[in-house]
């Protein structure tokens, strides 16, 4: 597997921007028996050096995934923009569970509004839109990981292309 170094993030600026808004985010891990776990993330932030991504997860909706990550399971995250099908998958060898702060809560709200806007564009209406993006009031945590590989998965000829690190 490709090893990244701290000065060569696999995320380029454009993709770092892409994953924070107007995308549906799904997170997977697996347990020791290789049974996968899967949950939705409600936004994320990218560190200034683009080496760390912190996902925001609802705790009650993500029990098995959090358990698998705590046990040292690897992580995969897919970001997909409903209106364009543009899709990116990030992988990480492990992830840590971290607390989130008020700024992150604000990011979750902004993210929710941006996703709602994107799915409204393709014809979805209430009550579906609000129900999909609302996690306000639920206990939430951050999941931080260092992407070690990124794959473009937009359906089409380039699907599966691996992004090369950009120093």
């Amino acid at each position, binding site marked *: 597997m490709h090893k990244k170094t701290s000065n060569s993030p696999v995320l380029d600026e454009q993709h770092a921007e892409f994953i924070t808004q107007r995308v549906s985010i799904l997170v*997977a891990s697996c347990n020791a028996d*290789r*049974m996968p776990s899967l949950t939705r993330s409600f936004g994320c932030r990218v560190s200034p050096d683009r080496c760390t991504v912190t996902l925001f997860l609802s705790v009650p909706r993500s029990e098995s995934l959090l358990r698998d990550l705590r046990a040292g399971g690897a992580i995969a995250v897919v970001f997909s923009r409903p209106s364009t099908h543009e899709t990116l998958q990030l992988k990480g060898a492990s992830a840590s569970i971290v607390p989130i702060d008020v700024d992150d809560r604000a990011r979750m709200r902004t993210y929710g509004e941006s996703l709602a806007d994107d799915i409204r564009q393709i014809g979805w209406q209430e009550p579906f839109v609000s129900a999909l993006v609302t*996690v306000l009031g639920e206990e939430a945590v951050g999941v931080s990981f260092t992407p070690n590989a990124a794959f473009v998965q937009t359906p089409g000829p380039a699907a599966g292309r691996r992004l090369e690190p950009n120093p």
Partner: protein
Amino acid sequence: MTIALSQIRRCLEGAVPSVLATAAQDGTPNIAYLSQVHYVDEKHVALSYQFFNKTRENILANPRAVVQVIDPADASHYRLQLQYLRTETDGPLFENMKAKLAGIASHTGMSKVFRLLGSDVYRVLEVECVLGGNPVTVTPEPHLLPNLRACLARLAGCSDLAQLFDATLESLAQFCRFDHAMLLMFDASRNRLYTVASRGYPQSGIGSEIGLGEGIIGVAARERTPIRIGYAAREYLYGRAVREGFASSADGDALETEIPFTGLAESNSQLAVPLLLGRRLLGMLYVESPQELRFTFEDEDALVVLASQLAVTFELLSQSAEQHEEPATTTPAATAQGVPLVIRHFAADHSVFIDNDYLIKGVAGAIFWKLVRDRSEAGRSEFTNRELRLDPELKLPDISDNLEARLILLQRRLAERCPFLVIEKTGRGRFRLKVDRPLQLNDVPVR
């Protein structure tokens, strides 16, 4: 709380993309979007296999998977724990998913990208409702059972096949608001379906034919499986299927003896259900709509129940139509006045033209030719189904071929094309050929 798969079937309609997580041997997880999570039965789903990719590699090495589906009404999330069992590359399940995928692909502009390589069948180990989320108010889906019951009651009141055909389509419109529907019978000797009744179209299309494997109806008939799609695909529309049928037609069926297929030009939702007696295909019941995602799983259930009742009633009524032993009366026919109708019969395919207008061909054409000949040569106007069945010249296929349905087809084609020739029922298994103009018969033998 245990959730039955049937309770969340509307999550499997493809309205919201589903997501699949798998894991490699080394424990690296992978996520993929799925075009289809197909409900097979209470314990199984089938996922579309379109590309040889990481997902494929993973499930072959490690058969555990989890799929997340979303309710399109209230955005509830459900997770299905799965165990991969096998991949099917032909047969009813595969063809069903292929037709559906073609629709999804054309809906999302992905026709060139999406091709079904296989149907991956998984056992459902557990269905989990994802906690959290705000409760939302969703309009409950209407109950279909009372409507189905009303439809079945109408069928039970029918005393002959013609009534049965019309009552079926009328009750679908009245009780289920399925406004565009047609009924086709299967001609096993030619492997083709012919339309005997339709409702909700400017042209009836009665007598038009479709081959097994052509369009949604033809594929569903060939595979003996219901097919329901919420986004119609260009390649499955009849117009196109029928045109391609012409192009590939090597059986000598000439273009001018084809009756145009009816059907919505802008059909977006389609549901084709076979009429089966055991494995024997009697025909097809078909409904369509210009609205996308018009037909639900429950609609499909209802139509399958209706179709099975229709098949049994159909069989009972067609048998009783041929059990009439009483010979036809031999009252001489009244002499007709006026300009003669020129009736041409081509023995090669029994195609019949009246004053150069195409009427019908095949078995119905041969029957028609016998009727007008008996009328001209022996002055007969009263006939029974039974004598047609026993007529050595007609060489009717065995009893499983539906003579009564062919007579209805002929009767309806005449009603549409030639007001001077009328087939009237005179009793069970008996009918009269009413002729209002003199007939001039012209037989074109096989060259």
